[in-house]
């Protein structure tokens, strides 16, 4: 699928995704799925381009899955280069591409095919358009990219939704603590994987299998249980790598390989001689060749365009000159003007080579031109990293300091980007440095030089060698070694002869051409020059090395790898968020109607990572706790070591009391406390509810002669279930006409409050209301306590908490419909079950009575009708939301009003 559609969705108006391609970003050994895109916008000077790279969470890509991670303006420092890698030229394999700009270097692998080809073409076109425009300073073309650059600044972490998890924290720790120290060695680790990566080759096609990628769900979303996030591979990878590196000795052993390193300044001559005398002089064929040339091509074309006609013929000459008793494969060729470096490996070793990269550094005029400088090839051979440098340093006897500087420049500027972080020359296990280093002999006359050469007193001559002197002063090639020089100086001859320079400059002979080495287990076997080759004014030099290479021992590697994985698993388990709770089993005692009780538990983060907790819903439930329970807070974030109080409050109100009285529900709940990315804790909440007449049904209360507290719970449950007589222990007892609680309250008001102003309007006192409730529930004291307003409010509350209202739900709608006609209202009420009808009759009679004392109590009939209408007539709770508007309120009041103004006795 073409990703440019999704990319386009993310762009602003006037910006266009010209081309986009799926790609893999190479980060060390990891390959991360990315989408690369070229975005265009129009400016006064023509189109302007930006290179965008997005992280993806899913394939195929959708706009919402893309996270912008990189933006690079297509300007002068922007470059795209297809990395030519002969070891990977299998048809159909991914195309490695390097994209640089804005100080970034990205290595991407584009899938083989025309789509990637089109993308590269579009990028090149964008570059050429840019170069044809006026300089950027003039028209500030990239302002439109700023908003995107801001996005990427914050995207780094959000790219993977796991930030803050254990491994992430570990990674951070490792990076800050130990990584720098291990850095020098870390490169060699890439070899550890070379075997595995070889096997991985060719499997990449399977990526398109259509399987769902790991669906990364962020844990802790309120509805999911047992959800757990995976650690991102991109985080785990470098950690495994680091641990493996530490253990390297356990799974590698040194095996010696013979390496030929040669250098020759060919003075711009054509390749007319066989190179066998130089390259294949010994009986044993070397395992690896590193062959460096200088002044391969002195033409202007080579200098200006880095184009060389000579390259091909010299490569051919080298290929033909390699040892005939082994077959070799070219690993890489790199050339900068006249400096060329070739690496060959015996075919059977080729598969143990990986991470091959070549780079150049020019140190010529303006610090840039390539007539002087160095070229280098790095690779991993088994588990050892190699860097081979071929350099041509500044000329002229007196300029040795300039040569030292060239060396430092090459070291500072040579950088390999295939690995993350990028590597420099010195971060390799083995460095071989060949070249025309151009150091001469100082403080000695030419005649004396020639005399010492005559006597083969090279050690005496060496005292005057600038390179030796500079190295002894540690001014150059620090930590490099050189085998002892036991051959005649290699410079300067009359071309075609073995005669010293006879030109008018009459150069003093010198050992310009050298081979140096650095690294453990590197020993020089044979260091020599090859006088048989005469076409140049230099003689070729070679040094054979025996180098101990860390070869992976498969079984041990596997074992160590397993150990490391185990260790990481262990760490990962240790880094899982974890808390302790001060109590997981809360018992509340004597919970009464409308009396809240609170308990506090404290949650302590006992883990090693910050942790987010949340009470989550159990399967198929919509709330994480029962309606009578309230948890504050229900989610939060705690740092390691910190504690957090959580308040749990039980509060039984009219909505929950009914089910608790009837035994349909009990004060029992199990809360699930979920840690984001970790385990769950169960918190049990239990309470014993003191049943109350509040919330009990009219029917049940009519079946209770005594106060509710004196009724056994089992009997209460039966009563609420509507089986009054079967199990009744008091058969003689006939039911009451109305609940005695209503009678007690109303009778109290009748006796003491008929003349009370503002009755049913002024609120009562909480404490008195509780006393009255207890009195009703226990029968103590004998008379209702409290002032009239409290008693009145109690009555209203009592009516409000009836599970089935006085006018049962099923009559509600008909009552509203016929509220304007008293006969109909009366008729309806005659159908209502007896106890309910009794209560209704009793209450409306009381209202009529109350209104007789209007002069004293100043009660407005409409106001009373409004209050009682809302309590006696109620829709079913689930319908209440839809219905509770002014119109129904007025109709309910009208219904009650009918009974206030008309005589009624059922």
């Amino acid at each position, binding site marked *: 699928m073409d990703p440019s559609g999704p990319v386009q969705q993310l762009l602003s108006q006037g910006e266009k995704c010209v081309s986009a391609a799926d790609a893999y970003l190479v980060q060390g050994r*990891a390959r991360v799925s990315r989408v690369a895109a070229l975005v265009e916008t129009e400016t006064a000077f023509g189109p302007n381009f930006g290179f965008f790279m997005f992280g993806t969470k899913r394939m195929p890509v959708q706009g919402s899955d893309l996270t912008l991670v990189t933006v690079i303006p297509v300007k002068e420092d922007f470059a795209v280069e297809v990395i030519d890698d002969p070891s990977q030229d299998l048809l159909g394999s991914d195309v490695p591409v390097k994209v640089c700009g804005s100080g970034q270097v990205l290595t991407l692998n584009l899938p083989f095919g025309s789509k990637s080809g089109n993308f590269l073409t579009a990028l090149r076109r964008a570059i050429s358009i840019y170069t044809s425009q006026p300089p950027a300073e003039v028209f500030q073309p990239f302002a439109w990219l700023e908003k995107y650059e801001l996005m990427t600044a914050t995207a780094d972490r959000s790219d993977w939704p796991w930030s803050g998890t254990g491994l992430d924290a570990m990674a951070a720790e490792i990076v800050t603590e130990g990584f720098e120290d291990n850095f020098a060695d870390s490169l060699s680790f890439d070899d550890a*994987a070379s075997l595995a990566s070889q096997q991985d080759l060719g499997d990449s096609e*399977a*990526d398109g299998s259509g399987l769902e990628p790991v669906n990364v769900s962020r844990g802790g979303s309120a509805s999911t249980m047992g959800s757990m996030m995976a650690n991102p*591979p991109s985080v785990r990878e470098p950690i495994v790598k680091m641990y493996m590196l530490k253990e390297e000795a356990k799974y590698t052993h040194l095996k010696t390989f013979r390496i030929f390193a040669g250098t020759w300044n060919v003075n711009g001559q054509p390749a007319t001689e066989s190179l066998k005398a130089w390259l294949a002089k010994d009986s044993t064929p070397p395992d690896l060749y590193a062959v460096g040339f200088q002044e391969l091509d002195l033409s202007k074309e080579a200098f200006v365009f880095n184009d060389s006609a000579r390259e091909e013929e010299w490569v051919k000459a080298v290929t033909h000159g390699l040892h005939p008793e082994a077959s070799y494969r070219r690993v890489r060729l790199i050339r900068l003007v006249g400096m060329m470096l070739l690496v060959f490996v015996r075919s059977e070793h080729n598969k143990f080579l990986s991470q091959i990269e070549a780079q150049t550094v020019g140190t010529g005029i303006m610090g840039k031109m390539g007539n002087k400088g160095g070229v280098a090839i790095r690779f991993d051979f088994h588990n050892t990293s190699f860097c081979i440098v071929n350099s041509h340093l500044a000329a002229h006897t007196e300029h040795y300091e300039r040569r030292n500087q060239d060396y430092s420049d090459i070291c500072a500027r040579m950088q390999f980007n295939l690995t993350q972080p990028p590597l420099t020359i010195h971060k390799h296990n083995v460095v071989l440095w060949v070249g025309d280093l151009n150091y001469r002999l100082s403080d000695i006359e030419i005649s004396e030089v020639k005399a010492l050469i005559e006597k083969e007193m090279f050690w005496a001559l060496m005292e005057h060698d600038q390179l030796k002197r500079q190295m002894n002063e540690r001014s150059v090639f620090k930590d490099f070694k050189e085998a002892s020089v036991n051959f005649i100086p290699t410079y300067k001859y009359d071309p075609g002869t073995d005669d010293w320079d006879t030109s008018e400059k009459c150069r003093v002979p010198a050992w310009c051409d050298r081979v140096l080495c650095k690294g453990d287990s590197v020993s020089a076997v044979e260091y020599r020059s090859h006088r048989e080759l005469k076409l140049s004014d230099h003689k070729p030099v070679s040094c054979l090395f025996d180098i101990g290479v860390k070869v992976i021992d498969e079984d041990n590697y596997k074992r160590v790898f397993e150990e490391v994985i185990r260790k990481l*698993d262990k760490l990962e388990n240790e880094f899982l968020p974890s808390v302790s709770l001060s109590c997981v089993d809360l018992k509340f005692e004597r919970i009464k109607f409308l009396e809240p009780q609170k308990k506090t538990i404290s949650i302590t983060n006992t883990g090693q990572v910050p942790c987010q907790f949340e009470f989550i819903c159990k399967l198929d439930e919509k709330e994480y706790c029962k309606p009578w329970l309230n948890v504050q807070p229900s989610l939060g974030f705690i740092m390691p070591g910190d504690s957090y109080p959580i308040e749990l409050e039980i509060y039984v109100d009219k909505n929950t009391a009914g089910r608790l009285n009837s035994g349909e529900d009990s004060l029992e709940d199990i809360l699930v406390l979920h840690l984001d990315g970790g385990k769950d804790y*169960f918190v049990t909440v239990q309470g014993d509810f003191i049943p109350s007449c509040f919330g009990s049904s009219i029917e049940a209360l009519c079946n209770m002669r005594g106060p509710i507290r004196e009724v056994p719970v089992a009997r209460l449950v039966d009563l609420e279930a509507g089986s009054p007589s079967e199990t009744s222990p008091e058969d003689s007892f006939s039911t009451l006409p109305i609940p005695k609680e209503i009678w007690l309250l109303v009778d109290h008001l009748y006796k003491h409050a008929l003349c009370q102003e503002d009755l049913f309007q002024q609120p009562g006192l909480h404490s008195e209301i509780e006393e009255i409730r207890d009195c009703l529930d226990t029968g103590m004291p004998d008379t209702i306590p409290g002032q009239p307003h409290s008693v009145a409010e109690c009555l209203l509350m009592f009516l409000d908490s009836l599970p089935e209202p006085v006018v049962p739900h099923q009559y509600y709608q008909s009552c509203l419909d016929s509220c304007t006609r008293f006969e109909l209202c009366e008729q309806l009420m005659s159908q209502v079950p007896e106890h309910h009808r009794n209560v209704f009759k009793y209450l409306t009679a009381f209202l009529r009575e109350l209104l007789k004392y209007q002069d004293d109590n100043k009660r407005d009939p409409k106001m009373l009708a409004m209050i009682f209408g809302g309590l006696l007539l109620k829709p079913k709770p689930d319908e209440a939301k839809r219905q509770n508007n002014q119109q129904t309120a007025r109709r309910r009041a009208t219904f009650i009003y009918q009974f206030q103004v008309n005589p009624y006795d059922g």
Partner: protein
Amino acid sequence: MAAGPYNYSYIFKYIIIGDMGVGKSCLLHQFTEKKFMADCPHTIGVEFGTRIIEVSGQKIKLQIWDTAGQERFRAVTRSYYRGAAGALMVYDITRRSTYNHLSSWLTDARNLTNPNTVIFLIGNKCDLEAQRDVTYEEAKQFADENGLLFLEASAKTGENVEEAFLDTARKIYQNIQDGSLDLNAAESGVQHKPSSPRGTQLSNDQPANKEGCAC
């Protein structure tokens, strides 16, 4: 070039179920830490552990949920069965009651997981031979009748612990390979990492009569 060699290609979710005290938490701990935790606190909730294993050359990350076994939590722990690729059902060979409850655990496991969930019966504490209360044979027969994999194990000595967890994974992997476990199903309990290699070398491990994975 595929993902680095250190990544796992699948995530399998496991649950461990069974009566309280049969050693579920100890089994998990033995598997993840290779240690016996004698004074393991009661699980009040759901513990969690993870480990990467290798099956047929594939790295697989196991996410293991260890549930509380108390009866009163039963309703809540049922929530965790969903999406499990493997269920380890544990009883204690020294306590017959824990064995007698297996049918009820099995009913839950069957009802609450998908039909392809691999159920592995573990008779734990096999180090306590002297106190044995359930014979190997009868448990084996129970397992066979119900199509369960079965082993007696000891979280204390570590005997067969590794095997139980790995055999379960092998069976799940085999179900993936022969196509009977549909990874795209929401609750397969398996997640596949797309960037990892799969294919050629794996099919070598397949029995000849099984057609290679069609996915």
